[in-house]
Structures are given as structure tokens and as C-alpha cells.
């Protein structure tokens, strides 16, 4: 595609990178077909091709972002389905990231929006704060009718019961069972350990059983994805640097991630810090060590099977898993190897609407995507739904909740909880 940046603009390495990306796009429109918002809205403005063109105009103009552009960029889920589809391999992810940063820096959002975003950016990355907020929300439930729109939505979304903090998430080292094959760090993350502590517990059991010494590193925390997708580049980089430092000290062969949204971001640390002379190389090294837990287990094998007569599983591939990290087959293969019959839903490439903070910031579109997703998942007919990302897990569980009797949806669990169960761990909560 033709671009019109001035030489002065191109002197900025970020603009130069955006220019390189833009020039690979030939505007064929293939991406529109698999974009969730285009599928829903049928408007070029809400398609990747339209956004790419808007971003080009925004960056070329050098002007502050306008409300219209912000509206359409905000509607992008960053699900990266377009990148799987794109035959020219346009690096949409880094382009839309650049646009989000430009928006964050040049556009004054209306104040309720600003407060909400600041609140999410402050609360979600900190497990302590998040747990507190969820408890407050639980208390606020009876009064939700009195709350203003978006806040009411958030309170409704919060679980009725907040589980207690798990001991596995504290900094420590878990020894490998038997011969130590690998020493790995586990990202215990932020929101996941609060919402579903059982996922990290199952991961530690499975990894140690498969011969991994697992380090929960002191000083590691949120991967930075949440704030990164809000265009808060500096905060994201700060969180990335803290993790890099913590994992360097831990001296590990791999950094294992069991939330694919986080994995996509950590695998991208190299790009995130590439213009930082102190951190560029270190970031690239850690990014190179990052592995989704399914990759590690795939390498080590699921191990001895202890359970028989396992239920059929409908596998929901998180966008960050299939599009962000290109892992579409591995998790399914593992489930099959563990003795589960694996089913796939129709429209598996479409996002469930969770997308980080998207369901909180764009509840209407997220709700429509969720409805569509839940229908497809139910139709696939598995007794359990498995996925590898906490955001999808909560979103889909929320979408299935409320039904009773025959309408009651299947339980939603993390893939790793099923693998753990099949190889000696406890049966995941909710499975009959």
C-alpha cells in the first residue's frame, strides 16, 4: 500500500515500523471475513482493513486521534484473527498497538471512560486489589440496580463467591517428582489466581509430575497485557521489565504460561522493548524462553493415564492461543492423548468477546459475540468445555450461567485441569 510519511516522521523508529507494516498490506479484504466485529456489523469501518487504513491516515496526519477513529479502534478485540487470515502477513498486532498508544497520548476520553480505564489498569494487575474489588462487588450486588450503566455491568460480571488465595501463588520452588528434566518459571499472573486458583495448582501438579522443577519467582507479576491493550505503553514496559528481571534471577530454561493472553504478550517482550538499549536483548531472551503450558507438556508428554471413561470435551481455542501464538493443534492433541474425545465448535476462529478488558469496555459487542459463541459451543455437545485462557473461561462460564435443567450449560475448565485430572490430579470443580 502506498504511504505518505515525511522523512521527519520516518525518523521516529515507531513510525518507521508502522510504515513497514502498512506497506505490506495490499488491501485485498480477506481479513474482513474472519473479523468478529465485521461479521457482526458489516461495516468496513469495523474491519481490520478499514482500521489499517484509518491508522495509516491517523499516523500520517500527525494529528491527535478523533472520537470517530477512537470508536472504531476501541471496537477492535485484538483477537488477531485477521493475522491468521492475512496472506501478506501484515503485522496488524503491532500496528494497532501503535494506534492505541497514539490514542492514549493524544485523545482525551470523556471522564467516566477515563475513570473506568484507570480503575481497571490499577486494580486488575494486582491480585490483592482485584480480590478486594471482587469482594466489594459481591457486597454491591443487591444494590446493582442503583449503579450507573457500565459499573452495573461490572458488578454483574463479578463472581458471587471469591475463592481464597492459593498457597501455590507465593514465591517458592516446587521440586520435580522423580528425575528433574527441566527447571521452569511459572507465571502465576494476576486475575487468574484470584478467579480460579485451581488452574495454577493443577499446573504445578502436572509440571512437577512430568519432571519439572517449578519456580514461582519473587518479583514477577502481571505480564503487562492488560495495560498494553489500553495503550498504556510505559506501564506495560514497566511490568515487563519487572518480570524479565525476576525470571533472569530464577535461572530457568523456560517461562511457562497457562493463560494464553499473557503468553502472547510475553512472547512479544522483545518487540516491546526493542528500542531500549539496556533491555532489548534481555527482553528478547526471555521472550524466547516463553512457552504456553501446552507446549511444554507436549514436549514432555502427558504421562501415565489414571482415569478411564472421561467425558467428551468441547475445546474452545482462545484467540491468543490460535491467532496470537499459532497454537491450534497442540492443546487438542494433548486432550486426545489424555483420553478425552475432543469436539470442536463451529466458527472456532471467532472471539468469545472476552479479549482482556474488552467485555468490560465494550459490553454490547462482547455480549453479542458471547451469545454466538455459547450457541456454537453448546451445539458441539461436549460434556465439558475446555480452554487455555482465563478470560475466555470466565466469559464463557458467565454466558452459560443461569440455565437450569436441560438448559444448564456444561462446566468450563482449563485444559490443564483436565490433563491433571486424567493423570492423577483431582477432578476439576463442576464436573459431575
Amino acid at each position, binding site marked *: 500500500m502506498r504511504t505518505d510519511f515525511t522523512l521527519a516522521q520516518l525518523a521516529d523508529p515507531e513510525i518507521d515500523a508502522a510504515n513497514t507494516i502498512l506497506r505490506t498490506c495490499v488491501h485485498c479484504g480477506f481479513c474482513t471475513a474472519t473479523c468478529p466485529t465485521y461479521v457482526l*456489523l458489516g461495516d468496513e469501518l469495523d474491519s481490520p482493513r478499514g482500521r489499517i487504513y484509518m491508522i495509516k491516515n491517523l499516523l500520517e496526519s500527525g494529528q491527535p486521534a478523533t472520537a470517530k477513529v477512537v470508536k472504531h479502534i476501541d471496537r477492535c478485540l485484538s483477537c488477531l484473527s485477521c493475522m491468521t487470515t492475512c496472506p501478506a502477513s501484515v503485522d496488524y498486532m503491532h500496528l494497532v498497538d501503535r494506534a492505541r498508544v497514539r490514542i492514549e497520548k493524544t485523545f482525551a476520553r470523556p471522564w467516566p471512560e477515563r475513570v473506568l480505564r484507570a480503575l481497571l489498569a490499577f486494580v486488575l494487575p494486582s491480585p490483592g486489589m482485584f480480590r478486594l474489588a471482587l469482594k466489594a462487588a459481591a457486597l454491591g450486588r443487591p444494590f446493582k440496580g442503583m449503579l450507573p450503566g457500565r459499573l452495573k455491568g461490572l458488578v454483574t460480571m463479578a463472581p458471587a463467591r471469591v475463592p481464597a488465595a492459593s498457597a501455590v501463588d507465593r514465591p517458592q520452588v516446587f521440586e520435580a517428582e522423580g528425575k528433574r528434566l527441566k527447571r521452569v518459571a511459572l507465571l502465576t499472573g494476576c486475575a487468574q489466581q484470584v478467579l480460579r486458583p485451581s488452574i495454577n495448582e493443577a499446573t504445578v501438579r502436572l509440571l512437577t509430575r512430568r519432571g519439572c522443577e517449578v519456580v514461582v519467582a519473587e518479583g514477577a507479576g502481571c505480564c503487562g497485557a492488560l495495560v498494553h491493550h489500553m495503550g498504556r505503553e510505559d506501564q506495560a514496559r514497566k511490568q515487563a521489565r519487572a518480570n524479565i528481571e525476576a525470571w533472569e534471577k530464577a535461572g530457568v530454561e523456560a517461562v511457562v504460561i497457562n493463560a494464553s493472553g499473557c503468553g502472547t504478550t510475553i512472547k512479544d517482550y522483545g518487540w516491546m522493548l526493542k528500542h531500549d538499549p539496556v533491555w532489548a536483548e534481555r527482553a528478547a531472551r526471555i521472550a524466547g524462553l516463553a512457552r504456553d503450558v501446552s507446549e511444554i507438556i507436549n514436549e514432555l508428554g502427558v504421562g501415565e493415564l489414571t482415569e478411564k471413561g472421561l467425558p467428551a470435551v468441547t475445546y474452545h481455542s482462545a484467540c491468543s492461543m490460535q491467532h496470537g501464538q499459532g497454537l491450534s493443534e497442540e492443546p487438542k492433541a494433548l486432550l486426545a492423548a489424555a483420553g478425552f474425545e475432543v469436539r470442536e465448535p463451529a466458527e472456532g476462529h471467532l472471539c468469545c468477546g472476552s479479549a482482556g478488558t474488552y467485555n468490560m469496555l465494550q459490553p454490547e459487542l462482547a455480549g453479542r459475540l458471547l451469545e454466538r459463541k455459547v450457541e456454537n459451543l453448546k451445539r458441539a455437545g461436549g460434556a465439558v468445555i475446555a480452554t487455555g485462557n482465563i478470560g475466555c473461561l470466565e466469559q464463557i462460564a458467565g454466558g452459560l450461567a443461569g440455565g437450569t435443567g436441560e438448559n444448564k450449560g456444561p462446566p468450563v475448565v482449563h485444559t490443564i485441569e483436565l490433563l491433571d485430572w486424567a493423570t492423577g490430579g483431582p477432578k476439576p470443580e463442576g464436573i459431575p
Partner: protein
Amino acid sequence: MKMPQPDAGVIARRAEIIEAMQAIVLGEGVITDEEELRVYDHDGLMAYKGLPLVVVLPETTGQVSAILEYCAANEVKIVPRGAGTGLSGGALPLADAITLGLGKFNKILEIDYDNRTVITQSGVTNLAITEAVEDEGFYYAPDPSSQIACSIGGNIAENSGGVHCLKYGLTTNNVLGIEMVLMSGKIVHFGGKHLDSGGYDLLGVATGSEGLLGVITEVTVRILQKPETARALLLGFPSNKSAGNCVAAIIGAGIIPGGMEMMDKPAIHATEDFVHAGYPLDVQALLIVELDGPEVEVDHLIERVDAIARQAGATHLSVSRSEEERQAFWSGRKNAFPAVGRLSPDYLCMDGTIPRRKLADVLQRIEELSQQYGLRIANVFHAGDGNLHPLILFDANEPGELEKAENFGADILRYCVEVGGVLTGEHGVGIEKRDLMGVMFTEDDMNHQQRLKCAFDPAHLLNPGKVYPTLHRCSELGRMFVHKGKLPFPDIPRF
């Protein structure tokens, strides 16, 4: 590219027109802000751009009818747009025209296995039709390479082809009926689930009409049962010429493959980088030949094609061993155009069609022109039906390169016509080949074609400036015929 002079009177009434549109289409379906309109300033052909007066995205046939009725009464032009994947600029906006997008017409309305038909709204993608029926073992045969994204309504407007058209026909052979809104706002139905209607074949007239006769809102297509077996062969050749001769020999032997496609070296490399289909990288030309039908027939045909290919000098022969592998073979071809984005920031895609026996000759000429213009070329095309898609690679950031590419393209198309071919096989004329129509048609030919347009749209409000190089008032056409091509009314703008 010269376009008709915008009507200042219409532009002056913009606010009023917007208000009228907003009364018909509620919410976000009326797009008026410049920065949003800019996103609609071109379709799949990026070389030409223009801001529309306003973009309207209706959701029902009733709304389309109301919009057209208003526009007819108020002399506002309409540019229909499907998925915006067209490569001939058919949906290029005009400053004094409403761009009418059918993106929200995305629902499949009825699947009728007993009659083997599907009724869909016109904005549904080509591939979505196949996806909706494939579990039952059916598919929709025409498969343009952009099938993942292009709309069925756009397919009808352009009479699109695809790799399987060699055996199963173009869009026109697979569409059974349409619902179309005329410029007056009247909703008409041509065809239906049956094979023939009485009277003139108006469905045939509408197919390939490039948005000049009406706005298609609903489509009935025929679906076919998937062949019992389909296998694809990859045949590599040391030269374009030997590959071209192999194509002619296969057809000459009475074999009609399901699809027969050819790619030259640059295209092979660009696509292999993306899909890793297992294409041989040490050949100059690659043929993908698909044979389908009952297993015994396919096995027999593979043997015959294999023998013909060896005779023609093939240096690489492989046959797909599984359905996945067959899909992978095709995947490279289907993604070839955009994958060329890896070789060059911009390309122009030509669409000439030639008699098959001239393949080697035309490729030779294209190669000479490539040297002469100093622009690289990647060739990807439907070899089986002689439909060429040379991709002229250029960099629009370099001043003068677009013009050079345009001239190069025009020379290719002229040569196609010279050897007995035609300007377009499936992408349509649009604006891209508009000024070359005279190479193929005489003034009389074009006048007759435009008279048909006048019967549907006497005020020339639908997609003006596309397809025909000269603008005539409908009343003028009769006289033109009498004057044998001498142009009366020299004051009328011609472009």
C-alpha cells in the same frame, strides 16, 4: 483516470440527502464524516480513490428500495458496493454519489437440499455458502480466489469465476435467481429455483452487469454434491512455454479437470513462503491440476495427465495423498495475489483471457513487456480456461510507477485482444479496463450495450463512469446509431 464531472448541485444538497438517508436507515448505517468516508474511498483496486458523497449501509430490501426511490426522484447517483474486494474499481466512489454498501446483508435465508438450492442475502460471502452446506456433502462451485471475503452479490455483478469454473461454469451458470432493486425503487425477481423462466433471460442480463442495472439484494444459487474423490497434481516445468503446451495438450486430449491453474516462478516463491504447500521451488512454471469424480475415473485420469505432463517435459510430478494435502496445494494458489504483497508493496492485477493455444506466446510477450517497462511481473492464472492474471509489481511511493504499471497493463490487454482474446475473464471492466473497451468493441457494439442500460436506468444514476468509456444521454444513442459512429453533441462531456 478521468471520471464524470461531479454534479455541484447534488453536492450542494448533501445535508438534505443525508437527512433523507437517516430517515430511511437508522443508527450507524449512514456514514458522513470525512475520516470515516475515507475508509470507503476505494475497493480492492487501490490505485484509484475518491471520497463518496455519503456511505449508506441498509439492512433490508425495503430500505434499499426506499433509498433508490429517493435517489431517482432527486437525481442522486448510486455506487453499489459488496465486500469491496473487486479488482477493477467497480465500487470506486464518486463525489456526487451515495456508496450503497451491502455489508449488512449477511444472512443465509434458506437451505433447500431437496431442490439443491440456497437462498441468501447478497452480502453473504461466497465461501459462507459452501460452509453452510458442506456438512451435508454439498458446495457452491464457483470459487474466486477471494471467496473467503467476496460477496455473492458482487460475484453476480462481476460474473466471477474461480479455479473450478473450467468444469463447473462461471457464476452465471450457477445462479438460479435474484431479487434486485431497480433504480426506480421497484423490487423485481428474476429466475427462481427452476432452471428456465419464460421470456428474455433477464437473470443473464443482470449477471455481470457491474452495478449498472440494479442493486442485487437476494440470491438463489444452485449447490452441487461434492465429488466422491478429488485429487490435485502438482506439475513443475522448466519453462512457461512447456507448461502452456501441457495445458493445451490436456484439454486437447478431451480431459476437463476440475481446475487447472498455473503460476510462474515469482508467484510460486511468494505463496510457498506463506502457505508451505510443498511447491517445487526449482521450476519455472507450476501447474495445479485437479481431477474429480468417482475414484476409478480419477485414478485413470491421473495416469493420463501424468503421461501428458511427462511428454510435455514436466520435471516435477506429485499427487495429493490426502484431503489436507489437496487443500494445501490450492491454498497457495488462492492466497497468491495478496501473498505477492511480500514481493512488492503494490501490484496491478490484469484479467485478460486468451485462446489456450496462445498461452506460451502471450507469456513470452508479457515477459518482453516486463523488460521494456522495467517492472517485475508475477503470473498467476486460470490456465484451463485461458484466463490470465499477470500481476504487475510496482511501488506507488515511487513517482511515475503507477502510470508505468497502467501502461504496461494496457499493453498486455491489447495483446490479449490481438491474439483473439478478451479484456476480462472474471474481474469485470469497472474503471480499470473501461478505456480499453474500444480495443474490443466498436462504437456500435457499445451503443447497443448502453441502450440496454437505458432500459433499466434512463437517467444514468447507477454506477456512472464505469464500464463504458463514453457517456451518452440515452436519447442520444438512437442518433449515434444512425450516424455510424460520428459523435453528435460534441459539447457533452466524454471521458
